[in-house]
């Protein structure tokens, strides 16, 4: 296996976390500015209750969510 292949062999946790973050942002359930912190914690199993709550609070506070909230 080449180095390149090793590098591009994504840990399934990472691949899944990217997919989840993308869907959450798309469905306005995660503020895009938190995707970095999301991806630094979720694949490693480090996302705590507090983290989830913080992300939920932020998305509620975000303009994007509030603008779109009425449409849901």
């Amino acid at each position, binding site marked *: 296996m080449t180095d390149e292949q090793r590098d591009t062999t994504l840990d399934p946790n990472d691949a899944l*976390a990217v997919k989840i973050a993308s869907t959450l942002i798309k*469905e306005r359930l*995660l503020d895009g500015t938190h995707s970095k912190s999301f991806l630094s914690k*979720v694949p490693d199993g480090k*996302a705590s209750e507090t983290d989830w709550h913080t992300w939920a609070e932020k*998305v509620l506070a975000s303009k994007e969510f509030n603008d779109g909230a009425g449409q849901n």
Partner: protein
Amino acid sequence: MAQGRIEAVSATKLRGASRTTTLKFDPSKRFVLVFGENGTGKSTMIDAIDMVCNQTAGTLQDRSSVTVSKHLPTIGAKAGDLSAQVTSSGQTWTATLKGSKITTAPDLDTPNVAILRRHKVLKLVEATPSERFNELKRFIDVAGVQRSEDALPKAIKACTQRIDAKTRDVDQADERLKQAFTEHHTPEEAQLSPRQWAKRRSDGDVKTLSASVVTLKNLIDTHGAASTLLEAKNTSKTNLDDMRNARKAVLEKIKAAGDVDTETGIVLVDLLAKAGDYLGKAEGTQECPVCLQPVSGADLASEIQERLGKMTELTSLAKALSKADEDVKAATNHTQQSYMGLIGKVFSLAKLVDALDVEHRGAWTFNKPQFTHLFEWADELTKEVIAESDALMDAVAALMEHIKSRHETLSKQATLLNGIKQSYATCVAMEKEVKREFAVRGVLEKMLEVVRRERLAFINGILDGIADECDGLYSKIHPGEKLGSVRFAMDQEKKGSLNQSGQFEGHKDIAPQAYFSDSHLDTLAFCFFLAVTKQTMGANTVIVIDDVFTSVDMGHIKRILNVLLEGTEDLDQVILATHQRRWLDLFMTQQAPMNEACIIQLREWSLATGICGDDVKPYLEDLQASLAAPKLNRRDVSSLSGFLIESVLGEMTKHLNCSIKRNPRDKYTAHDLLSSMTKAAKTIKVYAAPAKGVDPVLISDGPPSLQELVTDLRTTLDDVRNAVGDHFNWDAADISDETVRTFGGNVEAMCRMLLCGVCGGMATREKRTHLACSCSHLRIARG
């Protein structure tokens, strides 16, 4: 040529490789067949690949009671003697053994190799769900995300607990408002709800009320302080009077003391006492300190003490008077300070009373002009000020009862109003927070839904991809059989558990290992392995299959071979090792596309010679070589010709649906096959291309034509093949070399017509209008 193809593998002192053995693979061919009977060293050579490319001990990796450092080297050899090499794209990697650790140098860019072995087949198909999961773990194990996901329900639960707690706060505040409403609402407010009432009351001027309470309290406190100071002033005044009376009594005693002038006597006593003090300090002086006459200081001191002793009473009175003077002076000062403190506080009280709202005074009136001096007071004690101060204290005494009563009333009102306001504010604020928490919980619940959905979709996507690929491959190997439809699913109840199900005779969701035959399980494991490899390792991968198919029949072998040749085009290379000679014969008889494969046959093994392998050529090449030899070997030519007639026509007559005289054994002689082919040869048209990329042209019309070749062969078969090649009889002696050579030449010509010159295989694939070989450069159109 693909970049990752293995071109050569070598092994030295590795298991059966007692001497250095090198197998070279033609890099232009994607398929490699390594044939060898049991114990010829196939697995050893694959172990060499495994060592170099995967740094594992291969066959010995999971075996019990095996020590890699001891058992991986050839018996009698040491770990340090062992080495394995793989060459690919001109680069060579070497694996060595140090202790039990396998190291590959260089350690970068080794070919990407997946190996399927017999023992792994059992793991893939017959393993427990958890073992099966472990085989796919690195592709579908998302334990990290799952741990994070597990925190989500906890966050939702915490949110619910906060909602419950805050709702309780709202209920309790509501209860307090309800009670306050019941006790304090006015008849006009009876129609209001406790909340409406509380809001209305909260909107009232609590500030003014609170300010009034503070003002009244300040007035009460100031009056209290002034009263205390008044008492202190009176006490001080009484004390001063007492001191004055005491001094007066001392003076009267002095007056009554006598014959000397009292005042003079007191001065004298004082003078003598001071002179005595001086002489005590000026010890040894010899002159009078006043007149400077010569005199003994000691004698003078003694004389002074004697005179003072005689004036004792007068001395005591002098001391008493001095003390009385000091006492009067101190009491006078204290009294003055008491007055100042009192007037200051009364001054403040006067201002507070003056500023007091009329509503607080009630019926009491304040005649300010009576207190002009007091309001203009500037720290000077005058009789007017003292008198006005006393008058104010007297006047305010009547007001204070009313003020205290009003303060108590207003304080109660303020406390009630503040309580209502606080409870109402709690209701409003907590309800807002509850609403917020509901919104957060809603987001968290949706988040959980998304995370779960995506996780399951992610895993199932991979599993479905593998299952679809596996099923597609399986149906190619077992077309029309009522089994397959294998699916995989994560066990929702158990972590790290992968269930497998399939279809058997119309029954769905059955366990394949319970119903499938051994050969079907073998092929299922093979398909699963191939699907996993294709789905997860991608291109630039070499797959190696080590003697996995032990119990499959010829029909299935052909279909497996088709899968390996055509279903793995996205892989770099396929290396198949087998002990079943059927695989070898498929290529040697060119029923499989010989030119697309690299065939290696391993010979008998011994410790002394090690592993021996050489390239294999098809029978047709053997015949061509025999015909080209200057010295004709009649038996070889006759025998090989007969063998080729049977192998080629045996396959072609089947695919051309030629009629044949059936026999119970379903096995046919060369004569039967030539007779069967005679009729077909009249009508079929064979098109062939001489090289890759060139359009096929008609070749069956000859000269000689296919029909002429088959007819001639049928005529001469008995004489040449049977008499010369197979049996001994005297008739063979009458057959010339020329006849044998012609017979062999006709067989070769027929084979060249029915075997593809490009891929080396037969036209056995059914197309809409014709049969074609695997590369389609040979086509046979039925008549």
